[in-house]
C-alpha cells in the first residue's frame, strides 16, 4: 500500500514537471486616461479604468484562468492629443490599482523628451502579483504626471499596455 502511494506521488510529480509553460501576450488596446483640469504646476493624477476580461481572452486561447502562473507588464506607451505635445510634461510615473490588489508602481519616464506626442515608459524590473490585477473585473491605470506650468484644459492620454502572461499548458 505504501509503495502504491509512493508511486502515485512520483507520478503526480512527474506530470507536474512535464507541464509546459507558455508565454502569451495580452494587449489592452487603447485605454483613455483623464486628468481633470485645471492642471496645476507639479503633480496631477490621470486615471483610466480597464476591464481585463482575462478569463474570456484566455478561453479563446484554450487556457483556463487557473492555469495562469505569472504575469508582468512588458510595455506601456502613451499618446498625447494632437493639440499638445510632451513639452508641458516633465515626468510620468505609472501605477496599477484595483479593489483587491495593492497599488504597484510599474513604469516611469523621467525626463519626458521634448516635443513628442508618443511616449514609451521604462518598465519596473521588480513586479509582483501582476496577474492579480488582471484577474479583477476592473483595474485602474494611474499616471502621476508632473506638469511644468498651470494649464486649464483637461488632459487626455491614450495608453496601450502590453502584458506577458505565463500559463501552464
Amino acid at each position, binding site marked *: 500500500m505504501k509503495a502504491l502511494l509512493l508511486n502515485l506521488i512520483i507520478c503526480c510529480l512527474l506530470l507536474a514537471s512535464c507541464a509546459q509553460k507558455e508565454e502569451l501576450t495580452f494587449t489592452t488596446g487603447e485605454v483613455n486616461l483623464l486628468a481633470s483640469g485645471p492642471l496645476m504646476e507639479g*503633480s496631477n493624477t490621470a486615471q483610466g479604468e480597464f476591464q481585463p476580461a482575462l478569463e474570456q481572452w484566455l478561453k479563446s486561447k484554450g487556457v483556463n484562468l487557473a492555469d495562469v502562473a505569472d504575469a508582468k507588464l512588458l510595455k506601456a506607451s502613451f499618446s498625447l492629443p494632437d493639440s499638445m505635445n510632451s513639452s508641458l510634461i516633465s515626468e510620468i510615473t505609472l501605477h496599477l490599482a484595483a*479593489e483587491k490588489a495593492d497599488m504597484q508602481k510599474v513604469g516611469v519616464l523621467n525626463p519626458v523628451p521634448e516635443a513628442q506626442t508618443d511616449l514609451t515608459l521604462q518598465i519596473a524590473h521588480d513586479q509582483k502579483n501582476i496577474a492579480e490585477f488582471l484577474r479583477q473585473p476592473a483595474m*485602474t491605470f494611474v499616471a502621476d504626471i508632473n506638469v511644468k506650468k498651470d494649464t486649464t484644459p483637461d488632459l487626455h492620454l491614450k495608453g496601450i499596455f502590453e502584458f506577458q502572461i505565463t500559463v501552464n499548458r
Partner: protein
Amino acid sequence: MKSIWIFFSLFIASLTVSAQDAADQLIGLWEPSNGKARVKIEKIGSKYYGKIVWLREPIDPQTQQPKVDKNNPDESMRSVPLKGYRMLKDFVQKNGEWTDGTIYDPESGSTYSCVIKAKDENTLDIRGYVGVKALGRTDVWKRVKLK
C-alpha cells in the same frame, strides 16, 4: 404609516452620507510634523492614496537636479521623481480609522505598514509599524489650508 417610512429612509440616507463624509475627511493636503513635504491624499476607486506634491528642498544637493527616489530597492525605479511620489497607498476606512495601507520613507527606501487616525478634522495620527502596531512610530500631520 407612509410618513414614518419616509422619515426612516431619510434617516438611513443621512447616516450613509455622514459616514461617507467622515471617511472622505482624509482627502486633502497634509503636512508631516517635520514640514519637509506636503502630501495630497485622494481617493481612487474605494481606497485612499497620498502623494508628495511639495518639497521644502526639491533639489538634491549632490546632483543639483530635482530629487528622485534614489533609495528604491528596484534600481529601475530610482528615476521616479519625489515630487508626485505616492508614499501612502491602499488605505481603506474601517471602524473610524484608515487601515490596511502602507507608508514609504523615501529617505531610507523602506515601506512600513500604516494606520491613520483623525484626531480632529485638521489633524491626523499616522502610525508606521513593522509587524505589530505596538512596534512603530506615530507622526502628527496637519491639514494645509489653501488661501
